[in-house]
């Protein structure tokens, strides 16, 4: 069964871009435009991986991350941070990977594949 990826970013165009890349490569996707909505969608959709923007107008990604980890059903979902902030490497400590904006579609796919593979192996 195809793996499901939840994309969270307050810029709808970016969510659309990420979803398109993943769908084109055989993944199922879901989208959310802020942390609160992201948590709701995550609980409902139970994604295998979440891409997360940090700097969002309504709720910062770091807060979403803390809330996510508190939920036992979601605490193990790997997070890939995709952000324009220079400090994103340090903002979320146990992120599976971090990607700087702007990014290449191939780069995102490569990271996502390797994270999902290592999850599957583990």
């Amino acid at each position, binding site marked *: 069964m195809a793996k499901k990826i939840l994309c969270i970013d307050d810029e709808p165009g970016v969510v659309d871009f990420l979803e398109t890349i993943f769908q084109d490569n055989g993944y199922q996707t879901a989208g959310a435009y802020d942390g609160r909505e992201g948590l709701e969608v995550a609980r409902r959709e139970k994604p295998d991986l979440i891409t997360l923007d940090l700097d969002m107008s309504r709720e910062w990604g770091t807060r979403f991350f803390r809330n996510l980890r508190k939920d036992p059903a979601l605490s193990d979902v790997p997070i890939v941070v995709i952000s324009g902030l220079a400090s994103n490497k340090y903002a979320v400590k146990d992120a599976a990977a971090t990607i700087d904006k702007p*990014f290449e579609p191939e780069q995102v796919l490569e990271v996502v594949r390797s994270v999902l593979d290592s999850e599957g192996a583990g």
Partner: protein
Amino acid sequence: MKRNEKKHVLLIECAPRHRRTLSSQLEARGYDIVPVGDGTRACRVFREQLPSLVLADVSVPGLHVQELIKVIKQDRPDSEVILITGQDDQELGIEALRQGACDVLTKPVNEDLLDIALGRAEEKIALREELQGYADNLDELAKERSARLIQAERAAAACQVMDRFFSAMSTLTENADEGELSLFNEMPCYISLHSPDLEIMDTNQLFEKTFGNLLREPSWAIYAQRGNGDTDCPVKRTFQAETGQRSRELIRTRREQLAPVEVHTLPFPGGDNCEDMVLELCVDLSRMEELRNTLAETQHHYQQLFDEVPCYISVLDEDLRVRAANKRFKEDFGDPAGGCCYRVFKQREAPCTDCPALMTFEDGLPRQSESAVQTRDGAMRNVLISTTPLKDAQGGVAQVMEVSTDITRIRELQDHLTSLGLLLGSVSHEMKNLLTLTDGGSYKVEAGLARGDLERIQQGWQTVTHTLGRIKKMVLDILLYAKKPEIEKAPVKASELAEDAVGQVRPRLDEHGLCLDLSLADPSWEVLVDRDTIHSALTNILENAVDACLSAPRTDRPSIALSVRACDQGQTIFEIADNGVGLDPECRNNLFTLFYTSKGRKGTGLGLFVAKHIVDQHGGSIEVDSSPGQGSVFRVALP
């Protein structure tokens, strides 16, 4: 004793007959007779009368010849004694001659012998008188000579004083090179000494070098008027007035050059045996004039420097009163005229805290500080103040010089650079998002092309154009902020401005289904503006209205109204009203502050700042009415 004066003769004779004979003989020779018959009275009478001649008969009873001679030689040594002896007492006569008697006659006295004896005695007396005269003359001569000697000594002493004076002068001149007296060396000074006959008695070297040897020449010999036969001169006036004189004169050197001099004279009282003298000092003013000119020139240079240096310079006393100020200071702050610096610079009533000048007064060390001051026309200036102590001869801080450099422009540039830095930080996130969106759009276009999926191509292309519009607006805002371009006003139809701005936001309006109501009072109404920048300003405000509508929780239809009308004061009003989220008071106050945004990371905080800046540049104004949940009204008034 003079010849015509009668000579007294003391005649000591006891035998009346002899006494009469002798008396008549003596009287015949012009003598005045003082007869004495009693030998015991002889000494007393002699002492009373002190005659020049004594004629005594040694046989007079009571007469002690030796005692008499003793008294005579003691009381009047120049009196002569002639003794008359009998045949029997010749030995007594010889003894008397030994004792100093002049002659001894034997009785009966031969008249011729008496004549000879009297003649001898008189000769002796005359000789002695002559000798005495010589002696007296010698005394006078000696006195006269010694007086001359004293006079000579006094003159010599005066010369010595003058010598010492001159040598002191020349020592001063010689030493002058070594120290502070160089001015003395530079200052030509002719010194001369003058006699009451108005003759030059002595001169210094410089005098001789300049005028030649003028010893014994008239005192006015150095003056230019000497050619007119005019003998008036400072020395002459000094002898007349008997006090020192001071005057300006013109001298003529031996090379016939004329030069102005300042003349000082000083009388030297001579005393009993020394002539009065006058000392004359002439200071050459032509050199002084040169020095004075150089000084004036140097002062002028310094004044120019002081005035023209591109700083505010002031000199403060201990009460912080401005004692001197340069031109630039006076231009911007007015003439301080002894006012306190804190009043002149800051309109304060008390010194500023941490006043650098006060600190310099306290410890004599220079200080530097930054401050904002207000010019007399109310403009604020950032200044960098440097204080320097001005010390008196004792090393104390008498005054403090304050040099204030206007760094307003530097501060502005610095602020500008700082805000550019902040701007870049603030827009970088938004830029990365926009770049990512562009990538997303082009990805879709490429993928659509690869699959022949037209819908995908259209979606991708729409994302690209939309994102490009956002990028363009942001870049233009940054450029407007960074460059602050000069505005070029030209008449533009107000309706065109409004329509252009609406055209700019139209894609977003359509995308989100927002409606915009445009109302123009008079389509031909023109305003004098810089079209490009006003377009940016209006667009930014409209974009803000769109954002406000999109942020509001929707209960009714979101809408924007743009109206253009002319007001009574000849201004053009662009009114942009939205029924969006509205602003709370804090938001409203900070609306036009650089980098302030109520849209989180969505906004750059640049748009309304730039709009306000442009409207300000046009001499217009922006008003805002807004309350949370009720929407906002922006009113742009352009002159």
